[in-house]
């Protein structure tokens, strides 16, 4: 029975995919809490909905493929995808859009390619972009953060809004929603205002948009946890943030009146979430260290380009997807010098 031969090592394995994913979820908790604090229950409801839909989609696909759904569910990757998606979309996204997004992410982006490990694109980001292109209005209607909102939504109000589209009595959309800081910045810059004028508005806080800055800080914190647990290495987050900072600093130095400061860029939109949780998705990122530096820096650069001149105010999703395409090629050309080889292969 030659097939019973099992090769060394004959020791217990130390890591597990599900524990890795669980740790990622743990690291997301500060961000989830802060976002819930600023944007209300809708965020949590979205998380729960997205997770439910993702798990259901995964189960169905696995059953259709004639395999046990537990195999795919056990690794918790669907949950991570769902939560990342829920954190990227507006907290009052209609439920059916979440459903659509999750079906797209799990079935088309992940399972059709063969499941976890074989998907070339980050499922959460692919779903985000798909919805953003198909439903631009719903996908860009953000709530005003706590402290600025006229009427913080209660749990039931959020639920009704998400499931039914029913606004709380006596309120119009305009009263609830507000542009994200990135939106506002782009909009007002296009109107010819200077950074100083824009900064006068009460929506601005200490590092970036009010509320948003703290979200960024919370994800940074989660990222530090991931680094500490050695679930990710510094290469992608640092190079991505550096890529963004460097580009932003350059333009800011050229003209600080029309280009927001690098700090603003770092603490706005999905920069922190992207740097630590999205670009670092191992399946779709580069796998060589040098490659990761190129990968991260390119994302940072593309984010800046799209934020400043592109059609969409935030760009992390686009940038990540673009670089996902390039990852295998980058990997091929950035192989490390193997032990005993005189010089690096090209």
């Amino acid at each position, binding site marked *: 029975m030659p097939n*019973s031969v099992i090769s060394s090592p004959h020791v217990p394995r130390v890591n597990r995919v599900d524990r890795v994913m669980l740790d990622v979820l743990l690291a997301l908790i500060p961000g989830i809490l802060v976002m819930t604090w600023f944007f209300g229950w809708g965020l949590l409801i979205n998380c729960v909905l997205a997770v439910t839909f993702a798990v259901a989609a995964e189960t169905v696909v696995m059953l259709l493929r004639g*395999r*046990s759904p537990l*195999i*795919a569910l056990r690794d918790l990757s669907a949950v991570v995808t769902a939560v990342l998606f829920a954190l990227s979309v507006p907290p009052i996204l209609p439920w059916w859009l979440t459903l659509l997004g999750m079906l797209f992410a799990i079935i088309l982006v992940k399972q059709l390619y063969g*499941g976890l490990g*074989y998907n070339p694109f980050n499922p959460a980001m692919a779903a985000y972009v798909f919805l953003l292109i198909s439903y631009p209005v719903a996908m860009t209607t953000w709530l005003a953060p706590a402290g600025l909102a006229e009427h913080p939504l209660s749990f039931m109000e959020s639920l009704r809004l998400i499931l039914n589209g029913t606004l709380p009595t006596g309120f119009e959309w305009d009263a609830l929603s507000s542009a994200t800081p990135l939106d506002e910045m782009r909009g007002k810059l296009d109107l010819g205002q200077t950074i100083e004028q824009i900064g006068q508005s009460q929506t601005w806080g200490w590092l970036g948009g009010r509320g948003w800055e703290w979200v960024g800080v919370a994800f940074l914190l989660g990222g530090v946890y991931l680094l500490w647990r050695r679930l990710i290495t510094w290469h992608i987050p640092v190079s991505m943030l550096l890529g963004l900072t460097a580009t932003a600093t350059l333009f800011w130095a050229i003209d600080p009146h029309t280009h927001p400061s690098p700090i603003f860029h770092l603490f706005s939109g999905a920069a922190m979430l992207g740097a630590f949780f999205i670009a670092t998705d191992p399946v779709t990122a580069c796998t060589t260290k040098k490659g990761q530096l190129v990968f991260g820096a390119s994302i940072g650069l593309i984010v800046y380009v799209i934020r*400043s001149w592109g059609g969409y105010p935030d760009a992390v999703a686009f940038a990540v997807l673009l670089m996902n395409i390039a990852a295998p*090629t980058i990997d091929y050309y950035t192989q490390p010098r193997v032990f005993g080889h005189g010089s690096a292969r090209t």
Partner: protein
Amino acid sequence: MLVAILAIAALAAFFGILLGYSAIRFRVEGDPIADQIDALLPQTQCGQCGHPGCRPYAEALAKGEEEINKCLPGGEALVLALADLLGREPVAMDIKEKIPSVAFIEPEDCIGCTRCIQACPVDAIIGAAKQLHAVINSECTGCELCVEPCPVACIQMRPIQEDIQRWRWPYPARQPVESDSAAPLRDAA
């Protein structure tokens, strides 16, 4: 807007150049295609592909007149290699790969008629008229062409004994459970 278009265009151009460069850099030059195919064929000369030997099959393949799954000794590995070389879709083999064997002549029964010698494409049988014949194991390709002509049916094919030198590590039985993107398999459970 313009900058973005330029940026994307620049990116596209960059990757285009990269692709073009790798196409040039990694292009395989050299042998006429029939030679390349012949180099892949196992040279068993068994004729099971329906051609009188490996070289004719290679030439038929080069002309595109043949399927790539005709060579039984080459098996699946060869189909994949040929598909790769010729840029064709891999086709399934109809028949299972056979266990590597060599011919063995029962010394008791051989009448020394030399027919097997004439049949053997690689001269792996030694003997003269009216004398006992024997197979040189190291030269026999296992093509079985000598089995049929023997008037007293004293040639058998015997599987090659597995020994430590020849032993190979088996392909891992514990397959990643989601690795079946191309062909749905049974449940891993």
